[in-house]
């Protein structure tokens, strides 16, 4: 693999950052990428902003705006090695956010008769009409816009779609592969780079025999029959001619490292171009003196709030007290956050026989979404102020090598778009995880103004990043500290909230 592709991504200050978590659990959480040959610093944190040079959290820019993903289309005959090429490109790209979409998932569901035909190997799967192109185009379009999509799971035995869809999230780079991927103008329009994998037909047949018999449970005779009747003519008729649409033709498929490296180099250049633009915008010196945004609401610092902060910030506070006082603070936080929901005037009858004109919450549904792990600690406090609240969870972990947040798990209430959402995280330092979580909510069509970010402590840089990216999101917290250190901890801060709350920090003597 050529190293040159990576040098572009390595800022001059790319000294390896050694994560120093005060919790000393850093080593276990580290992630590495199989093919990474360099440890480029892809995120630069200044006192006020988080700069992403490459591999930034995906599908949105520092303004929180959706960015069109870079779509690589890969076409080629059956068993030409499209998937291998796709995987090699993904590996060599070394960008954590790549989605692979296969055209195979979009075969049409067969009716009874067609199913019979398929069983006799008389159904033509190698025809443009065998694919649900409108669904495919809509899905690819949504994915390109950075939104999450549900991909059908096609069952090659029953020729139907499984009831459970597979969810794919937006990414910086999307690799789309399929035998007929170049036959539709609609699909071609969505591709930024078109790659045709040209592999000798004998090799393709040999691979196909192996795959269909071992992986898809078919018999030799049937596969050959299908090959001669459909696959071969179809390749000559539909697939080979589309080679003219390709930007790059890769002979010999996945073994062709030179071609793959060229593709990777090109994609890197494209991504870098976007990254540089971003960086220039963020380096705006005026932002240094920005006042706090209007969307920030800080709980009044009463003596009790101040006193609670003193307890939970103190390094000598034991876990029992830490949990007790942080819960008290969370309760106050949510009572405060609740007051920002829309209320309407309501006249009620009292047992004392006069009418009382009060206030009622308008008819809204409320959901809490916690950013694991620390955000989960706030769920109970929310339940205490909000009866029968629905709770969703998002697992975002910061990759300690890069400081980048990574999305690992997601479970949201159905129809989350109809809810007012309290997004919960105990502390918000750079805002990277919170921004990713907000983006996930927006991808699920939650209106931005219906999201309230609730935390116990934020750093100024996090407030600015979130407010700048999502100006309609309300930010509610109990204190804002000035700085974030090199390990992304807030100063003076509270330490690692999750570790202190759950007792995973260190063994007590």
């Amino acid at each position: 693999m050529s190293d040159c592709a990576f040098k572009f991504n390595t800022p001059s200050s790319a000294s390896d950052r050694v994560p120093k978590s005060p919790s000393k659990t850093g080593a276990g959480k580290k992630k590495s990428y199989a093919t990474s040959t360099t440890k480029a610093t892809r995120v630069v944190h200044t006192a006020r902003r988080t700069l992403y040079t490459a591999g930034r959290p995906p599908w949105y820019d520092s303004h929180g705006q959706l960015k069109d993903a870079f779509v690589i289309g890969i076409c080629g005959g059956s068993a030409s090695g499209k998937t291998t090429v796709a995987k090699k490109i993904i590996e060599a790209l070394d960008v954590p956010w790549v989605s692979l979409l296969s055209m195979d998932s979009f075969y049409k569901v067969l009716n009874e008769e067609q199913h019979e035909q398929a069983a006799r190997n008389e159904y033509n799967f190698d025809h443009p009409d065998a694919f649900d192109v409108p669904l495919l185009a809509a899905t690819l379009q949504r994915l390109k816009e950075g939104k999450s999509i549900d991909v059908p799971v096609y069952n090659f035995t029953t020729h139907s779609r499984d009831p459970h869809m597979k969810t794919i999230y937006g990414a910086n780079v999307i690799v789309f592969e399929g035998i007929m991927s170049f036959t539709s103008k609609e699909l071609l329009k969505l591709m930024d780079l078109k790659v045709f994998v040209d592999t000798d037909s004998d090799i393709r047949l040999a691979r196909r025999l192996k795959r269909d018999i071992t992986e898809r449970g078919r018999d030799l005779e049937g596969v050959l029959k299908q090959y001669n009747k459909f696959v071969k003519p179809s390749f000559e008729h539909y697939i080979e001619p589309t080679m003219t649409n390709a930007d790059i033709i890769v002979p010999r498929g996945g073994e062709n490292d030179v071609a793959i490296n060229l593709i990777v180099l090109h994609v890197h250049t494209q991504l870098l171009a976007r990254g540089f633009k971003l960086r220039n915008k963020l380096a705006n010196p005026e932002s240094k003196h920005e006042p706090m945004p209007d969307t920030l609401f800080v709980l009044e610092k009463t003596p009790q709030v101040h006193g609670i902060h003193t307890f939970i910030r103190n390094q000598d506070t034991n876990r029992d007290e830490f949990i007790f006082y942080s819960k008290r603070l969370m309760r106050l936080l949510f009572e405060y956050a609740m007051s920002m929901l829309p209320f309407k005037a309501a006249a009620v009858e009292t047992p004392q026989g006069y009418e009382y004109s009060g206030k009622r919450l308008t008819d809204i549904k409320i959901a809490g979404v916690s950013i694991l792990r620390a955000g989960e600690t706030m769920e109970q406090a929310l339940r205490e102020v909000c009866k029968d609240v629905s709770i969703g969870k998002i697992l975002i972990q910061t990759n300690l090598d890069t400081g980048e947040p990574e999305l690992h798990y997601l479970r949201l209430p159905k129809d989350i778009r109809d809810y007012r959402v309290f997004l919960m995280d105990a502390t918000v330092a750079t805002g990277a995880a919170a921004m990713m979580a907000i983006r996930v909510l927006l991808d699920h069509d939650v209106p931005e103004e219906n999201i309230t970010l609730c935390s116990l402590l934020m750093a100024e840089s996090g407030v600015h990043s979130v407010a700048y990216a999502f100006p309609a999101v309300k930010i509610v917290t109990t204190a804002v500290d000035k700085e974030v250190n090199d390990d992304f901890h807030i100063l003076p801060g509270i330490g690692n909230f999750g570790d202190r709350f759950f007792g995973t920090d260190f063994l007590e003597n």
Partner: protein
Amino acid sequence: MEPDVIPCTSALDNELFGSSLKILRVTDNVRELQTMLRDKSTSRSDFIFYADRLIRLVVEEGLNQLPYRECVITTPTGQTYDGLRYEKGNCGVSIMRSGEAMEQGLRDCCRSIRLGKILITSDEETHEARSVYAKVPQDVYRRKVLLMYPIMNTGNTVVKAVNVLQEHSVNEQNIILLNLFCTPQAVKQILTKFPGMTIVTTEVHPVTPNHFGQKYFGTD
């Protein structure tokens, strides 16, 4: 039918009673809690839920009245933080029965705080408040006392309870009354008789939801 008098002019009351009367800032959220407690169609489980929430807010506000001193601590990041530390030597005293509804709220904020109880009944003939039972920490005179009583109509019960505390040598300056709803005349009576006392409440209104105790404890 009496017209609704809300919002009660807290500014006016504060003019009369200075800083002795603390009315919780009435956000829409607090107003909803009050509305739920006032509404006669509120179910009992809702009533308890919303009452506990309002009590908690009053308790937090009451704790803000306690003495503290400044201190500097070190955070896990090695930085210093200018904090506050509360003085020891507080206690809670609930006026039975409805005051006991507030004990849990106080316990939720101060886990091991000492709690005293005073039972006041009104004489069936004279309607005069009468102290029947009192059990308070022995050194109550050295402590700040968070006196708990959620609904005040005339204020007679609280006056009687303060008398009991005074018999235990408690200085009225050290008494903070935690209350949810009270009438203007109750405030007036108490702060006239005990100008050193502090009252924390959420609403001053001529009509109080005096079904509170019965609904909370389910004895209606």
